[in-house]
């Protein structure tokens, strides 16, 4: 149960103003009262702050899971089945925040994207607007191909076209399938390499001071995520062709 106290303290330490429990009047943690255990009204907090964490990218995921379970045991709607409607509502809202935060933070890519979002970088939105625009105008979506992949991507797209055409005719070319399968493996390997590279940037980010130093790391991460995104879409295309 010491964990709980720690979460509480951590959150309080992270700039949340301490206040008192609506139910028992004791000092409370951000989400539930450390004294009587009741859920508290939700307060605005980003995903890191919800877990009482500072905005650092290196994360003890096992610890995060433990905290997630412990907080679930305090906040989940199932525990407020017989409570008043106000508490039920808070519990629902707090638990949805908890789940959203946990889902985002436990995944290395989602966590990085989220932190970049907090820093004002909208990766998703950029690509989404581009996608929508491409769809509505009927033009091919322009994606910046990472230069080092240019040659491979060109080759792969040709092969995919060929395979699609063959499949349409009901033909089968095991050699081509095998070649594409190999390319896919290599792309997946690249994804893995990029993830490792990203972990390296995490250390830089966590150690960097605010300002230029951080901005540099930030830009490197944005670039890396865009590349990774590109490869991920490519792998998805390959899977689509191979499976259909």
């Amino acid at each position, binding site marked *: 149960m010491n964990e709980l106290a720690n979460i509480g303290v951590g959150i309080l330490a992270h700039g949340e103003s301490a206040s008192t429990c609506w139910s028992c009047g004791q000092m409370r943690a951000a989400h539930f009262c450390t004294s009587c255990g009741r859920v508290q009204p939700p307060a605005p907090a980003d995903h890191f702050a919800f877990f009482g964490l500072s905005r650092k990218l290196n994360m003890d995921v096992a610890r995060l899971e433990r905290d997630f379970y412990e907080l679930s045991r305090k906040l989940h*709607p*199932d525990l407020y089945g017989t409570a008043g409607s106000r508490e039920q509502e808070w519990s629902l809202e707090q*638990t*949805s925040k908890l789940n959203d935060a946990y889902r985002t933070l436990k995944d290395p890519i989602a966590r990085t994207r989220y932190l970049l979002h907090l820093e004002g970088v909208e990766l998703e939105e950029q690509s989404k607007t581009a996608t929508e625009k491409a769809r509505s105008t009927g033009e091919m979506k322009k994606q910046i191909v990472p230069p080092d992949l240019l040659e491979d991507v060109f080759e792969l797209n040709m092969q995919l076209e060929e395979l699609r055409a063959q499949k349409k005719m009901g033909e089968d070319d095991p050699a081509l399938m095998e070649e594409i399968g190999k390319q896919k493996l290599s792309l997946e390997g690249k994804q893995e390499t990029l993830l490792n590279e990203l972990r390296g940037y995490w250390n830089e980010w966590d150690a960097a001071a605010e300002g230029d130093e951080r901005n540099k790391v930030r830009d490197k991460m944005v670039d890396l995520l865009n590349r990774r995104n590109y490869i991920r879409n490519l792998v998805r295309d390959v899977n689509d062709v191979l499976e259909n």
Partner: protein
Amino acid sequence: MATDRIVGIDLGTTNSLVAYMQGDNPVVIPGDDGLNLVPSVVVLDEHDQIIVGNSARRYLIETPERSVYSIKRLMGRGLEDIQEELKLFPFRLADDLQSGEVLRIKLGEKTFTPPEISAFILRQLKRNAERFFNAPVTKAVITVPAYFNDAQRQATKDAGRIAGLEVLRLVNEPTAASLAYGLDKKQNGIVAVYDLGGGTFDVSILKLHDGIFEVISTNGDTHLGGDDIDNVLIHIALDDIRGDMGTDVSRNGEAVARIRKAVIETKIALSSQVTAHLDVELPEGRRYQREITRAQFEHLIQPIIERTVAPCKQALKDAGLKPEQIDEVVLVGGSTRIPRVRVLVEEMFKRTPHTGLNPDEVVALGAAVQANILAGGSEATENMLLLDVTPLSLGIEVAGGVTDKIILRNSTIPASATQHYTTQIDGQANVAIHVLQGERELAKDCRSLARFDLKGIPPMTAGMPRIEVKFLIDANGILHVSAREQRSGKEAEIEVQPSYGLTDEQVEGMILDSFDYAEEDFRQRQLIEARNEATTILAALEKGKQSPAWGRLTSAEKKQIAKLENSLVEVTREDDYAAIRKGIDTLNQATMRLAELMMDGAVSAALTGKTMDEADLGEGPSAPHPVAKAEFK
């Protein structure tokens, strides 16, 4: 605890059960026939009485046009969704049914929506529980297939309400099963639940950790189950009969019902025998007989049970697990008794499945465990907590008819997402949002959940309003939407048009209508109505006593009224409908003159410019006598 019993209900395609937590163990509550399983069969007999369960089964053959089974297949679905179903099941749709309307099924001359028919089953279970406890039961946890979408869940919740049950939680069937399993085994690890029931298939992968039941992924098919196996056998029999006897009985409801009964018996027999005899008495004294070997049977059902493979693979993939990493596979649902199904599961997960649970009962038992947790828990369920997921991604239609996913499948629920919207033209007051559920890229391939109209946006230049819309999937897997215009801070009004489903008003109406179909319920309704009327008349009398007219009554009149008033109050406490009615009538008579005097007062008050309200007319023209007689236009 005694006052607030919460039961757990498995509302199944083929059978339904009700269970509760007796001490440390969940137990099934039997019906008055002593049986745990209540067949999900509903019949409207010639006297317009509803019959449910075992006693309804014979009507499937005797009066197929007044009977319905497997109604769960139609829950939360629209006419265009069920074309396949209609080919295979004898559902009789209402003749005037329009596309886009909630389905209505004919039982005899009457029509009912799927939630109403499900409510009849729930009402039977409620009665069974009430008889068992000898106390009212008003709260329940009801299970649904994990792969049920929002509309199907909402329809199930509506069914609960129509049956007079407050549905505290919808729990996914495989998850419920895991609760019953975990209560028993109490060990940590990764568990896969393979649930092949009468009409639905689910697979869920869970992590059990010190009492936390965390669903990692789920997948399934809400139209795959034992029913499909029956249908294959029925079609073979029909073909045989057409070939051998030269008669087509496929349009003969009674014949098909007899064949269905026989093939189900054969199917069950083939789980324990290597060969079974199919024997059907057809109309006009003819007989259809044949032998079926288990090998033939397995060959026939292979394409059906193989449809469970892809969902299992997807669930494993979504969980990021290999079959070897699963510690135990738990079998749930009657169809997992089929040896070939067990072999298939064993091949897929590379281990012998756990068959220690009663596949018919375990879901209801798990629902009872969840009910106990919601009621505040007990020693047995202390520390148990279920963390479930949403089975399908939630999306919004964006430009070009594309689905923009905002909550991904297998997200732990409750889950939320926030989206921002703005206007396209100056002064635009409404924004339409189309909410979808499903995994496909294009909106037209996903399931339409609802269309929301954001209304009353303050007039601003195009693009200026910033409307924040919050989508929240609650612990039942049901979507809630709220919106706020951020510049004005105004809550935007949302008008919801569910793509499939009943409005609140429709549900309220059905709650009342449902009372008419069971004698017992009808009496209950009469009693409730009489009590309500008594309350109204007593309240009107109270007001009358405050009016000047009261002073003009003789003391004998006042005494008589007081006496009758007291006796009406007395009988209202009893359950005697006739006595309450009599009390109302006599009090009505005795207060006639008071009403007339009050009316005179009201008229003169009106003439002196007073309004009706000020004339203290109590409930107004629509209230029953003594004031109702005074008609003001």
